[in-house]
């Protein structure tokens, strides 16, 4: 069975990507379950809580956002994800010591695949990754270190089935992507308002409430009545139907937003992405996964 295990299943883009991947496997009759510590994913696909995860022979384990120090750590995933920070740091230190001397073996009775949904692989916070059989990246523009002597493959995330609605609003901007300093959310909001947008709707997961209160809450008073906070909503079609423009302030080659804007005839205002190749279809993406996992 394919088991996707993630260190976070809060409502953000990476969780949506893993949900879509899980649904695609099951739609093609490859049994797949998504395990995560949060509950948002539970009604989105075949899924379970991370505490219910059990390793079985011949499983294919796709790991996202969990720091393993060896393949055998897969047997203790729930503890790894919920470990207190001080023990976590100690564990990383402890795990690094023997790895300076010898390499960790790859598992022989299951397959271990690492999926990197956002961060550059070369800067991944995992202490060591030599025990993975494969690494998946979602974009050519993610920096895959040449020093990695592990089989890797690149394919984007599945695209949601979106269409252009007949009645698009005018001058209503959407802000998509988690609210945090790294995403420059406040800059995107101000840019939209300076461009004359009538309303700015924030369709984002509140990753950093302190940033929101310091940078965005004052904007709601500076521009009274023009900024609305929706939070993360499940229905992307409804979201794109409610906006005419999307504003983004950071370059994320793996982000699906620009492509979704194309599908829904929504104007995209953000950093140009240099990858001009034709987007892959979900069928093509699935075939890549099928080949790489040897299904």
């Amino acid at each position, binding site marked *: 069975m394919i088991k996707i295990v993630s260190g976070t299943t809060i*409502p953000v883009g990476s969780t949506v990507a893993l949900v879509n991947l899980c649904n695609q496997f099951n739609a093609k009759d490859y049994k797949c379950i998504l395990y995560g510590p949060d509950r*948002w994913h539970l009604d989105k696909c075949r899924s379970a809580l991370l505490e219910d995860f059990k390793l079985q022979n011949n499983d294919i384990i796709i790991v996202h956002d969990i720091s393993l120090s060896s393949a055998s750590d897969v047997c203790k995933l729930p503890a790894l994800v919920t470990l207190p920070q001080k023990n976590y740091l100690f564990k990383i230190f402890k795990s690094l010591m023997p790895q300076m001397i010898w390499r960790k073996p790859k598992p022989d009775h299951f397959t271990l695949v690492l999926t990197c949904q956002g961060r550059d692989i070369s800067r991944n916070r995992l202490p060591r990754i030599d025990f993975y059989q494969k690494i998946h990246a979602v974009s050519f523009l993610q920096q895959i270190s040449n020093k990695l002597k592990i089989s890797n493959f690149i394919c984007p995330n599945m695209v949601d089935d979106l269409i252009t609605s007949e009645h698009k609003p005018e001058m209503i901007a959407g802000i998509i992507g988690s609210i945090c300093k790294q995403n420059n959310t406040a800059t995107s909001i101000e840019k939209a308002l300076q461009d004359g947008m009538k309303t700015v709707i924030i369709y984002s997961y509140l990753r950093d*409430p*302190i940033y929101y209160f310091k940078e965005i809450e004052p904007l709601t008073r500076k521009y009274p009545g023009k900024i609305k*906070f929706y*939070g*993360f*909503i499940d229905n992307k079609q409804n979201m794109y139907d409610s906006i005419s423009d999307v504003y983004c302030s950071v370059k994320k080659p793996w982000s699906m937003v620009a492509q979704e804007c194309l599908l829904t005839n929504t104007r995209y205002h953000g950093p140009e992405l240099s990858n001009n190749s034709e987007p892959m279809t979900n069928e093509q993406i699935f075939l890549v996964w099928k080949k790489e996992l040897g299904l």
Partner: protein
Amino acid sequence: MKSFIDDFYKLCDLLKAGEPFAFNRFSDGELYILQNKELILDSSQVKVGEKVTDGIYKDEDHKRFHPEEHSFYRDRIVEAFRFQKKNYFKGLSCRCCVGEENFQWQLDFHGNYDKNFTWANLLVNGNYPRFICEMYPLFNNYKTVFVCNEKADLSVLPFIAKDFRVGYNAMINDYGLIETIKKWIDENNIEAYLFLFSASSFSKMAIHQFYEHSDRNTYIDVGTTLNPFMNMRLDRTYLKSFWLGEKGKDLDKICIW
């Protein structure tokens, strides 16, 4: 065993399913009123029964309950507390927040055990991040009526279809608004709406009377949880911890039953 987190997700599931319910909260303020203790919360004093300390409350939070003068309103809160109906959830002050004696007093005063008992703090403390990130977006699925303080700015909340305002000590000064809203519900055939309440003890009486009157809407006492979106003060420690990053243990607190 009852779970603080499971109970939270129970309400989320009802919201997702569009199944009407009421979530009423009886916190320490209502506990003292139920116990028929004199209660004065204002900027000059906090008086609970015979005990008096310095006042810390701002205008919108001023409350004054005198057992003899305001017995009519206490009776309404008692009715709200003892009311039982399918999907009428009552949040009690938990033993970890008000102590074993007060917790047990509530159960004894209520009489029979209600399977719809839950935590008054269900949307705050350790569940507050979940409330903001997972429950709040579900409000967008509803036409929403907000009953809140006259000073609140609702322009950031996208789901508001209608609002009704109250002033300070609304439990007494704005009691008549309950009939006004009932009439509005009837005259406009209001069904499948979500009613949010941030109106202190007024909310408890109103939620009970509205759900008894019209159980095809959903009624939630959100308390101070949405203050940061309404240009209202962040004077609760859980709000200061979450939005300002101030030190405090409220956000780690998973209340026990």
